[in-house]
């Protein structure tokens, strides 16, 4: 049996006994087999000593039990690692950062506390997945949409706290939340925003409450355990339409992104999209591969034109009344028509609600608010998983070109395990910035994983040199990423640590998360 | 000369001298005459011994000077009260919560650091007003809009950090911000979000950065001094119009709000919506015929009022829906909205002329409501009438339903009558409601302020009573006047003041000496807590 670092055997078994009294012995996992279920299925440390493995797991069912677990952990200085549904694959899964932590598994807290159809919001516990909430809404015929990310079995609470995103107009998940309840390290329960007013009528309607707006400090951090979260939902729209815009030349990307920025910042386009470079995504062919390596842009453009493909492709998603959507698409085409050789194509069009038969025919249901696990096909039938490297870029064509060039080169220089640079779409996941997502494959091969980790770290540094920071990262690289956020000699980390020491003096909550370590585990930084 | 509480005259004199070395002696104000300039011009305690007043003011010009001032304050335990442009009239103006504080006046830090036309954002210092930023953009002919608060001389940064709002699609000012720079109580400078990455290219493009999203803890508090703030701007739209939907019966408010909520939450209506009834703040309020109806025993009935509006061709309720965007899209949105409202029998529609942008100077001068089209103005100051001596706001948030509005009407009308205050026919006592913030309704009570201690005292009692009544019904204020910050903070008492305990834990960690704006939003430093922050 593993022990949490710094905890004696006796203290640990006393703690486990008390955990069992709090949550029931069926819900404390300490056997090797049970604990192994909490490993990161996509761990980049497969079969290595370094792989972080929990010492146990505890699964409470109520807020009161969470408080008790936290108090016990405080008494014995047991580090906890909170998971909601623990589906954070590609970013660390359910495994802790500090090996030997006890996983605080909140999956059993899966109540949907309220769904308000008139005012379009929900209040949920951490264990509620997108599938769960979708089913609940579907069963009752409520005219509200959720915004699932890829994949759909994740937790609404957990994903929003990690500041993940989806595809519909509500794609910024943290921004779509309204009101939280949090158990602090000292066992206190706090409700934020209007929730601090007893019997408030607007907890899920007005975000900020009175005084400091604290919600953000509980996202991507280890300052508390979130036990309830409100979410704004999207009223079921009348229609959905997606139209494709394809442009022929490499340098068209400047106008393409600038016009897209105008449309999305004006509210004409409310969903997300990706900027696809066709050289990476065109059907593979030796001629194409050679052209890509040749650096001859004109020849590449000619090849793509000949294949009827174009150089850049963007799908614009529209949600709303059918006539409004039509007008928005018309306007968008007008704007993009300033690019010579631009082509437009209608991709997909729907009216809601869709019945089961219609839904089954939809190519990709996720942008229509329907959760799916389809994204798992992307790694191919023999995939063992991947890690996500995800820097944010300014919303400009220059940034797209620069990112492709710099990161592709870095990837090759660092010794990519694959031969060709990965095809990487640039996503417009956030309202006003772009994100590039590199899937770095995980294999069941120690040498390859070691190299992949080195590549990841190299990419973090390369991106930082260019002023691009990650919006989120894998637990294995949290320190590396936090290190580049170093303005004024790491002033931000100092501030995080000041808050950590105040809110969790014993340092029991998720040590190391996003580079925030409790005092007794803090390394001396230069 | 007053001295800050708990500070010896010698320490204060030393501090003032050091402030002068830091910012220049011209920018330290300690004479009675100069310090009087920092009074709250709309103080509900005007001229009374309890009026909130400063002991001095310091006006730095750079972040480095702010750091020095903060360090000096820390050394001598001097409480500071930060103002950006100090135009927080109606909510406390430029005066501190803790009398005797030294005002930290950031007006001189008024640089517009960047306006990016392609990516539609700006980065500003605290002293930049809406007028300033508007002129900057106009002078360069940039195709960008700002979202001014009602009085245009307020600080873009200050208003957002107090979580104020405007009228256009970017009206939630705090939500529209992206990235901050903050001087902490220990003099450290922090940049939040992507600003923490040196050389970041996305400080004003991606809000959250990496790790905890801290920005919110610097709004409506005293955890740091904000010295820079980024803002997302709206690309100049092609067109704008306002569609008004009017309904004949009292109960029509329920579907009127439900449909409006659907339209707003779907993004079909992009700007603010305002609900109104002719009985409050409208033409009907002064009508003698209405007064006669109201004078009946029991007051005017619902049927009386429905008949009255029918005869006067007025409508019982209306909502103004603001549309912004491409002209053809706006037309389609308004058409869709009308289709939805047709379920209400007797509904009628009106629309303003479609405005097209850019407008020339003459067109702008004729625009009926410039703030709605991103043009700052001071016209709101006319609200109290020509002899007004100021006002303050009581501002609770209620759910976005007709039932909630009816409940608020009844509850507050009953309260008014109980306190001997007049109630108009129809029973409404507040402006709005409006969707100043998405997904909820804001109702606004305007309290007149006068240079009359007796009247002010009475109004303060009424204000406090309303705060408690609102809380009993689950309605809290989104913001409040410095004179009532303790009262309002006291109703946010869930789990025996757990949130306040959290605030105090953060306060003690971030400002152990308690020098930054003591008492703001009910957050007191340790040494003043016992006396000042009573638990109910």
């Amino acid at each position: 049996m593993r022990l949490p670092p710094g905890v004696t055997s006796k203290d640990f078994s006393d703690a486990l006994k008390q955990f069992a009294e709090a949550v029931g012995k069926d819900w404390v996992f300490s056997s090797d087999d049970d604990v192994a279920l909490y490993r990161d299925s996509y761990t980049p440390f497969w079969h290595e000593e370094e792989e972080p493995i929990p010492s146990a797991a505890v699964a409470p069912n109520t807020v009161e039990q969470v408080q008790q677990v936290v108090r016990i952990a405080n008494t014995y200085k047991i580090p906890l690692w909170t998971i909601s549904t623990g589906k954070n694959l590609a970013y660390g899964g359910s495994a802790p950062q500090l090996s030997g932590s006890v996983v605080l598994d909140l999956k059993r807290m899966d109540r949907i506390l309220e769904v308000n159809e008139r005012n379009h919001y929900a209040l949920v516990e951490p264990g509620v997945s997108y599938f769960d909430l979708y089913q609940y809404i579907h069963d009752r015929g409520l005219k509200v949409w959720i915004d699932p990310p890829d994949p759909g079995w994740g937790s609404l609470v957990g994903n929003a706290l990690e500041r993940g995103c989806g595809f519909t107009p509500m794609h910024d998940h943290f921004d779509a939340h309204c009101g939280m309840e949090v158990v602090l390290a000292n066992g206190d329960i706090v409700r934020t925003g209007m929730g601090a007013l007893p019997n408030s009528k607007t907890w899920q309607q007005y975000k900020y409450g009175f005084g400091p707006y604290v919600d953000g400090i509980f996202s991507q951090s280890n300052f508390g355990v979130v036990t309830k979260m409100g979410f704004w939902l999207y009223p079921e729209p009348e229609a959905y339409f997606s139209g494709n815009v394809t442009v022929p030349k490499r340098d068209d990307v400047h106008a393409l992104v600038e016009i897209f920025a105008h449309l999305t910042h004006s509210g004409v386009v409310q969903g997300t999209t990706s900027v696809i470079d066709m050289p990476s995504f065109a059907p593979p062919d030796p001629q194409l591969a050679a052209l890509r390596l040749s650096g001859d842009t004109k020849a590449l453009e000619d090849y793509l034109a000949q294949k009827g493909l174009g150089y850049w492709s963007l799908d614009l998603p529209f949600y709303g009344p059918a006539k409004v959507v039509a007008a928005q698409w018309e306007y968008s085409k007008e704007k993009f028509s300033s690019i010579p050789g631009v082509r437009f194509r209608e991709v997909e069009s729907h009216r809601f609600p869709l019945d089961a038969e219609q839904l089954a025919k939809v190519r990709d249901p996720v942008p229509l608010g329907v959760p799916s696990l389809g994204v798992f096909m992307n790694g191919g039938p023999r995939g063992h998983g991947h890690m996500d490297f995800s820097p944010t870029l300014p919303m400009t064509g220059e940034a797209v070109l620069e990112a492709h060039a710099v990161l592709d080169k870095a990837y090759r220089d660092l010794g990519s395990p694959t031969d060709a640079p990965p095809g990487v779409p640039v996503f417009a996941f956030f309202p006003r910035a772009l994100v590039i997502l590199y899937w770095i494959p995980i294999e069941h091969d120690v040498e390859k994983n070691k190299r992949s980790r080195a590549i990841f770290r190299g990419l973090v540094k390369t991106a930082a040199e260019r002023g691009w920071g990650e919006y989120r990262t894998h637990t294995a690289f949290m320190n590396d990423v936090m290190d580049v956020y170093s303005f004024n000699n790491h002033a931000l980390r100092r501030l995080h640590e000041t808050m950590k020491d105040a809110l969790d003096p014993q340092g029991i909550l998720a040590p190391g998360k996003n580079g925030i370590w409790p005092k007794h585990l803090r390394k001396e930084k230069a | 000369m007053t001295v800050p509480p708990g500070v010896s005259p010698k320490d204060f004199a030393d501090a003032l001298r050091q402030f002068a070395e830091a910012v220049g002696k011209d920018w330290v104000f300690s004479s009675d005459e100069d310090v009087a300039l920092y009074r709250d011009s709309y103080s509900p305690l005007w001229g009374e011994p309890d009026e909130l007043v400063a002991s001095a003011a310091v006006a730095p010009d750079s972040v480095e000077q702010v750091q020095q001032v903060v360090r000096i304050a820390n050394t001598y335990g001097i409480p500071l009260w930060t103002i950006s442009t100090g135009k927080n009239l109606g909510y406390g103006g430029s005066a501190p919560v803790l009398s005797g504080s030294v005002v930290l006046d950031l007006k001189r830090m008024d640089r517009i650091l960047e306006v990016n036309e392609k990516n539609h954002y700006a980065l500003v210092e605290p002293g930049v007003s809406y007028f300033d930023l508007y002129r900057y953009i106009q002078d360069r002919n940039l195709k960008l809009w700002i979202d001014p608060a009602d009085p245009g001389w307020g600080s873009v940064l200050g208003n957002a950090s107090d979580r104020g709002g405007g009228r256009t699609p970017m009206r939630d000012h705090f939500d529209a911000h992206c990235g901050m720079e903050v001087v902490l109580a220990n003099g450290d400078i922090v940049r939040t979000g992507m600003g923490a990455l040196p050389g970041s290219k996305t400080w004003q493009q991606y809000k959250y950065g990496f790790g905890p999203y801290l920005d919110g803890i610097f709004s409506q508090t005293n955890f740091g001094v904000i010295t820079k703030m980024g803002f997302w701007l709206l690309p100049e739209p092609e067109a704008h119009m306002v569609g008004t939907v009017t309904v004949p019966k009292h109960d029509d408010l329920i579907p009127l709000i439900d449909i409006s909520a659907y339209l707003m939450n779907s993004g079909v209506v992009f700007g603010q919506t305002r609900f109104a009834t002719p009985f409050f703040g409208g033409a009907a309020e002064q009508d003698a015929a209405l007064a006669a109806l109201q004078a009946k025993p029991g007051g005017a009935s619902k049927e009386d009022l429905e008949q009255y509006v029918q005869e006067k061709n007025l409508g019982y309720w209306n909502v103004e829906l603001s549309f912004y965007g491409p002209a053809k899209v706006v037309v389609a949105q308004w058409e869709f909205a009308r289709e939805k409202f047709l379920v209400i029998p007797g509904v009628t529609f009106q629309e303003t002329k479609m405005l097209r942008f850019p407008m020339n100077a003459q067109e702008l001068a004729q625009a009926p409501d410039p703030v709605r089209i991103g043009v700052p103005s001071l016209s709101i100051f006319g609200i109290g009438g020509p002899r007004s001596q100021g006002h303050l706001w009581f501002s609770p948030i209620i759910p976005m339903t007709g039932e909630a509005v009816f409940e608020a009407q009844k509850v507050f009308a009953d309260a008014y009558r109980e306190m001997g205050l007049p109630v108009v026919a129809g029973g409404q006592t507040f402006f709005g409601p409006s969707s100043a913030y998405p997904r909820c309704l804001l109702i606004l009570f305007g309290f007149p302020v006068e240079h009359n201690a007796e009247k002010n005292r009475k109004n303060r009692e009424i204000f406090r009573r309303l705060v408690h009544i609102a809380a009993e019904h689950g309605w809290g204020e989104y913001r409040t006047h410095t004179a009532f910050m303790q009262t309002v903070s006291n109703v946010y008492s869930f789990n025996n003041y757990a949130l306040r305990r959290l605030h105090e834990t953060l306060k003690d960690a971030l400002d152990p000496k308690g020098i930054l704006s003591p008492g703001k939003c009910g957050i007191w430093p340790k040494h003043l807590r016992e006396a000042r922050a009573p638990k109910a």
Partner: protein
Amino acid sequence: MRSLGAVLLLALGLILATRGAAAPDESQLARGQRVYQKWCYPCHGPGNDKPGTVAMAARGQKPAVLEDRTDLTAAAIKFPVRQGVFFMPIFRKTEVTDADLDAIVAYLMRNNKPSAQK
């Protein structure tokens, strides 16, 4: 429309105004007009959206637009600026310095008949 030169001068003036300084070669009258334009005009200019003017008119003041008056005194101008009056709030020295205020006075009294000047 204003000429480019005037725009630049105004811009320069606005930049320097916030430092409480006069633009080079700026006469006191020009400074007064510049500061007036920034701080006073939004309430005291002509138009129904100018609450200062509307209130003055409602209280019977003729003319109601400040710039059009020829009977103002230095004290009558300075008092409301530094003390407030009705709903006009106090203005601080970080907004309108003493030198700015003197310039506003000079500007607003520019058309006074000689006997009215004090």
